[in-house]
């Protein structure tokens, strides 16, 4: 998830009729965008944090978790889909590395693999969960948390699809690839969130 720093811009100051004018930083936009993304991760972290907090709050009110008479969710298939998600993060990293080597073919292949694996994760989990019924607070909390994650995953996948299309058109260079960087970083973030959710939903 390393980001590439752009070279420092030349600094000039000129005197105009109305006063001094300093040149605008050419990488101001990129710095702004990167800071936006970091702050967005904070926001999303708090959002998922509120749901995780709610989960533990409901558990302490219940006593036993899962509540008596309710089966714990089976984690074997979700583990498989989680593996797909983790591999898709790996391929996303490889995609960026490929771009840095100016290897457009590899960029598109790895990005394509990311999207395919991501779709496998989403479709797999949606299929599993759609057979669930709301039997009580356990499944309700489960669907709320998982649902929030999958909604984000779908949105970021759409963004990744758009980025894949642009990559195939050759619109990224090793010096300028902000939307690619943003999309893959968002995907990595969702990956990390899913790992935490997996632990909360299936393991503890």
């Amino acid at each position, binding site marked *: 998830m390393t980001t590439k720093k752009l070279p420092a811009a030349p*600094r000039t100051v000129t005197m105009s009729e109305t006063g*001094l*004018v*300093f040149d605008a930083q050419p990488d*101001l936009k990129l710095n*702004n965008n990167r*800071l936006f993304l970091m702050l967005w991760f904070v926001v999303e972290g708090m959002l998922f944090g509120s749901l995780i907090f709610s989960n533990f*709050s409901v558990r302490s009110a219940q006593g036993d978790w899962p509540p008596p008479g309710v089966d714990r969710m089976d984690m074997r298939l979700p583990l498989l889909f989680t593996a797909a998600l983790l591999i898709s993060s790996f391929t996303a990293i490889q995609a960026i590395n490929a771009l840095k080597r100016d290897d457009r073919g590899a960029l598109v292949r790895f990005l394509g693999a990311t999207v395919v694996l991501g779709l496998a994760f989403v479709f797999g989990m949606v299929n599993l969960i759609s057979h669930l019924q709301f039997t009580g*607070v356990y499944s309700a909390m489960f*669907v709320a948390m998982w649902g929030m994650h999958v909604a984000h995953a779908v949105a970021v996948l759409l963004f990744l699809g758009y980025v894949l299309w642009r990559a195939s058109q050759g619109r990224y260079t090793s010096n300028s690839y902000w939307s690619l960087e943003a999309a893959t970083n968002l995907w990595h973030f969702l990956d990390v969130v899913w790992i935490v959710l997996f632990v909360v939903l299936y393991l503890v």
Partner: protein
Amino acid sequence: MATTTIPAVSSGLTPAKRSQLTKYFTWSLDHKVIGVQYLVTSFTFFLIGGALAMLIRANLLTPNSGLFIDKATYNAVFSMHGTIMIFLFVIPTFIGFANYMVPLLIGAKDMAFPWLNAFSFWLIIPAGILLLVGWMVGPPEAGWTAYFPLSGPIYSHADGQTLWAVSLHLLGISSIFGAINFLVTVKNMRTPGMGWFQMPLFVWAMFATSIIILLATPFLSGALTLMLFDRLAGTNIFNPATGGDPLLWPNVFWFYSHPAVYIMVVPGMGILSEVLAVFARKPVFGYKAIAMSSMAIAILGFLVWGHHMFTNLAPWTRIPFMITSMIIAVPTGIKIFGWLGTIWRGKIRFTTAMMFALGFLSLFVIGGITGVLLASVPVDEQAHGTYFVVAHLHFVLFGGSVFSIFAGAYYWFPKITGRYLNERMGKIHFWITYVGFMLSFLPMHISGLYGMPRRVAAYDPKFQAINILTSLGAFILGVGQIPFYINAIASLVGGEVAPANPWRGLTLEWTTSSPPPEHNFEGTPIPAPDPYGYGTPEGAAYLAGERNIAVMTLTHGSAPLLPNEQPTGGDR
């Protein structure tokens, strides 16, 4: 700005003037236009929320319910009053002021993300409409705090509560995008020579407020998501009868809503620092202390939410929350003493803006003291749910936030519109507001301590005298806002033209014309080395037009600084 030729004899709306007006009704990326859009929208909602308050007070003239409206409608009225005032008036007004002023104060051309800025504003419109539509389909009656099971599908089966949740979701998203915008703008786009401790205190205040919004609002989104699940998807997350946790809603809701009250007061405190320094012609006393106190309030504000739940929390949590709630009075007190030190032996000019700022000082201190009283668990156990709390919250929210909003309005109106607000009307507005406010809310402390509960449409007849007094004060307060609106509209059209720097301020917004050009500044603005250097020789020189190239000296002769660099040595 190039326009079509204007006829020599023109009356009414020329093409140029019409386009100047219509731009406020259309999508614009200019932070100044967006700021005005926020302000006009929020001041419209102030009227709606205020009308609801008048309805509340009219009904409380008699101890029996049903004078003008029935009990259910009464519940809806106070629920909407609170929701509108908080989410559609106070918060958007400060965002509006910040949108207009922060780029100017830091010497930037616009915010970091102009498109996102416009998007944040335009989310307010559907959110407001949804809330008002909710009134028609069966209004929310569970208070602005919407506790379960009252706000659940059984006791609030009308759709208004659902629309309330969706509306607040939209407002939350709008807030969050705005907060990110402010944080990035302040961090990356300050003009050369403006280090962190050369920033005006309103910018510090908005920086701190944006941190609060960033961290707290997602919890509101989480709570609303779960509420929508319970209301729409048949889940029972909050229903204790089916295994849900009844304490979950208060915990998640107040984790947002307590920091929310600091969102509503910290920007106002920033405005206070600006107005008091300018109209006392003195430097701000304890600039760094005030700046750091804003940050301290932002952080500490996350540790106190349990004081809204003293009567139903686990006993061992009460003392910790009591302690944190009292500690947060310390940075607030530091600010109060800083402001007192600012005006001490100053050359005070009693403009309307200054009057409202001084009014804030007196009223917010009273509200803060009752807050510390309520922070004490034994006091709160008696006063929770009574009018004592209503008195406290209005002293800090009206006496605090709204007074600072008016101070900012009178201070910045000339900059935004190029015209002065009429000072005589302003003084009338101030005095009626101050007297009406005191008459209305001071007695509530007494009725509260004598046991009158809040959110009731009917009460024990022994409280009637106090309630009549309170209502009388409220009507005076309500009527007293009319001069402000008349003043604003009349001044817009035909007020005295204001120069670039009518108050002789040292901050950057006064170095450009009133109103500013689209690109804000001609050339790159050079900030005063001390934005509060009133009475100093450097301040006087800056006001006289000397823009010393301070940035050159700070870099010891090497290349000039760019916006996100710090000076290489010496003062920061």
